[in-house]
């Protein structure tokens, strides 16, 4: 009920947003600073059983070796994959004061081996999304945003793609929209929708790099599915690389 009136208001908001972005303001301010670092966790994640892929014969065949939930993955040296690192303004707001037009190429979300690839990703508000089903089984993509318009559709056959453009994609900044598959309950993806392009997801060794950041004071925010989010203050100058490591506490 309140979810439904959010959808209508956000639809109107996104339309006005798109109009505004197009018309007056110049393109977002880009800079030359970069921020790098490692995200690690102190302590062990709570043990979880491997995913019961036997629920769907296709998924069992696609994953011969047991797969554990992606949120529980932690490297030997304690660093974390799938952590989402992004920039916030000094006073903790997502909007950095200038308008950034979303990049042309779409954020592609692939469903292969009964898992979402990428598991965690970021996008600029208004960027088109391309949902692809490369599995030979039926997937049902169900997004659960609070500030954006939700979508819920099936892709029963291999190779089906759907482009979510303009009003259908996520147009309002919202950190971590959860996308799940109704048919395979363990499948989940987290999409960070930001008004600016300064974000990265940690991969091997928990490293992240954020480039062409304009100089100034910011907050570096880290989000992870399993661990408590954290924000630290940083200050960058033009052409300079800042190294920052963040250790996440237990939720």
């Amino acid at each position, binding site marked *: 009920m309140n979810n439904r009136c959010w959808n209508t208001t956000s639809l109107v908001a996104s339309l006005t947003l798109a109009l505004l972005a197009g018309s007056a303001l110049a393109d977002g301010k880009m800079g030359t600073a970069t921020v790098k670092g490692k995200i690690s966790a102190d302590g062990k994640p709570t043990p979880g059983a491997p995913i019961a892929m036997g629920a769907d014969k296709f998924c069992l065949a696609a994953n011969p070796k047991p797969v554990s939930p992606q949120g529980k993955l932690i490297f030997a040296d304690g660093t974390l994959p799938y952590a989402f690192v992004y920039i916030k303004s000094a006073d903790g707001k997502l909007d950095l004061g200038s308008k950034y037009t979303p990049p042309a190429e779409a954020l592609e979300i692939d469903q292969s081996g009964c898992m979402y690839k990428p598991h965690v990703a970021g996008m600029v508000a208004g960027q088109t999304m391309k949902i692809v089903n490369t599995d030979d089984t039926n997937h049902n993509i169900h997004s659960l945003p609070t500030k954006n318009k939700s979508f*819920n559709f099936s892709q029963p056959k291999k190779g089906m793609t759907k482009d979510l453009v303009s009003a259908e994609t996520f147009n309002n900044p919202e950190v971590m929209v959860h996308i799940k598959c109704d048919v395979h309950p363990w499948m989940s993806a987290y999409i960070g929708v930001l008004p600016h392009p300064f974000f990265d997801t940690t991969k091997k060794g928990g490293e992240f790099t954020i480039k062409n950041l304009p100089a100034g004071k910011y907050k570096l925010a880290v989000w992870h599915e399993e661990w408590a989010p954290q924000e630290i203050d940083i200050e960058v100058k033009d052409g300079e690389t800042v190294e920052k490591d963040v250790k996440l506490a237990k939720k």
Partner: protein
Amino acid sequence: MSAGHSHDHGHAHDDHAHGHHELGFIRKWIFSTDHKVIGMQYTVTALVFLFFGFTLMMIMRWQLANPGHVIPFVGSMLSKQLYAGYMNLATEGVLLPEGYNALGAMHGTIMVFLGIVPLAVGGFGNFVMPLQIGAPDMAFPKLNMMSYWVFLPGGLIMLASFFMPGGAAQSGWTSYAPLSVINPGQTAWLVGMIFLITSSLLGSINFIVTIIHMRAPGLTMFRLPFFVWAQFVTAFLLLLAFPPLEAAGVMQLMDRLAGTSFFMPSGLWVSGKAAEWVGGGSPLLWQHLFWFLAHPEVYVLILPAMGIVAEVIANNTRKPLWGYRSMVYAAAFLGFMSFIVWAHHMFMTGMSTKISTFFQTTTMIISIPSVIILTALVISLWGGSIRFNTPMLFAIAFLPMFAIGGLTGLPLGLTSSDIHLHDTYYVIGHFHYVVAPGTIFGMFAGIYYWYPKATGRMMNETLGKLHFWPTFICMNCIFFPMLIQGMMGLSRRTYDPNIYQAGLASLKLHKMISWSAWIMAIAQLPFIFNFFVSMFAGKKVTENPWDSTTLEWAAPSPPPHGNFLTEPKAHRDPYVYSPPGRKDDFLPQHVVLEV
């Protein structure tokens, strides 16, 4: 110019037409208060909805026969994205599971609430019943017009729901909570239902008052043709069974829009998070209220068809109906019993033995009046002189088809056999046997039988037979294999049956059913052609082309505003055929015997 002797040709009625000043086209055809015009409006609208519901089913049949293949002809149209957030039924030409559910739910709703009820009660009831009781019009003409103009928006809202953001209703025509409260697309369905229920309610009041108050002099209750009795009992079912569903519809609308939890139990976990509803409701409350309506509803579907079949059989066997009184008492008993039988649809919801015993017993008892009516109709054939014209063909085919429909209800009415057969294709075969070759054959018989009275021209016989035989054969090729699939354990409402062992085993049957359904679609073309062309090119007829005895044949065809030229009186029973010692083998009710 005594209207008495039937052979006096129809020239008499021309010089009377100028008596009434001519209404404008709008008042005469669109906002008319003439029960005949409203009857025709209902009939045409209902036929359009029936064919639309039929096309929805044909798309589903494609998906069941070859799952995952591109739908021919309509595949690309269904995949078009009309606007952002539009739920299209198919992508890349392939039907989606939500599309399949939407088609299934709307097929059921359109066929039952927008097709058969308006045709059986709105169309035939409005047109034929006042004529058969010798009344000039319905008791409340304006209320009658209003019932159509409340029905039409309800129907249009149902159609518009396909294009609304949430898409059409996707939780079956039964719209069980909590699924129907969670799923998108149900709000338009509920609003449409409230319109339809109000329209049926107003219509039924009109029927009952007309039948009780406006019968021609001499036409006592037991001289009424059986069709009028069927409409009378149906009107009571509509009057008393529909309001509880309206209340339940309001409650489900509140659950969807105002966040109440009439049907939402506490502790619901939906789409990965705790649901917003406070809980404390009972999902079974919806089922109780829905089936409290829906079982009398299925008798609303079958009784008018039985009425039409009785009329056509009596007329074409040239013999009075056998056991007319037992049929009338059986129809009334059927109407009463239909209110205390509803929970046999809910055996599997976890019923205690006491409650299921009660409902099993009442279900067994309710099968007896249907057997009585059926046997009475069959025995009426004995000793007759049967004419095999098109209405009679449909009426005769109704009897074995309704027999199969009724018999297959037995294993579903007993809890133990229901364990295996509940919610399988057996159930679909059962109720479709009663509704498709049952009620719709009755409707076709009625259309062919009363078409001359409505338009003054006869429908073509050869086209009629060309319509009957393929439809009769296809009906059986569609619904008998469904009974087999049900026994094999194939669950209903499955988008892609090949996932299940029973589905794979019955894929050949699915293909056969689908092909029969599409062939049957082609078999309807002669009927459509016949229906529209005969209005102009059909053989002109006088008042009584079928040499029938009931009162509606005393009025000229098409009857003018106010129906009868002279006030008709009933002097005898409705079906006095082949009276001994008279030249004509029929003696109409209104004819005064010169003794």
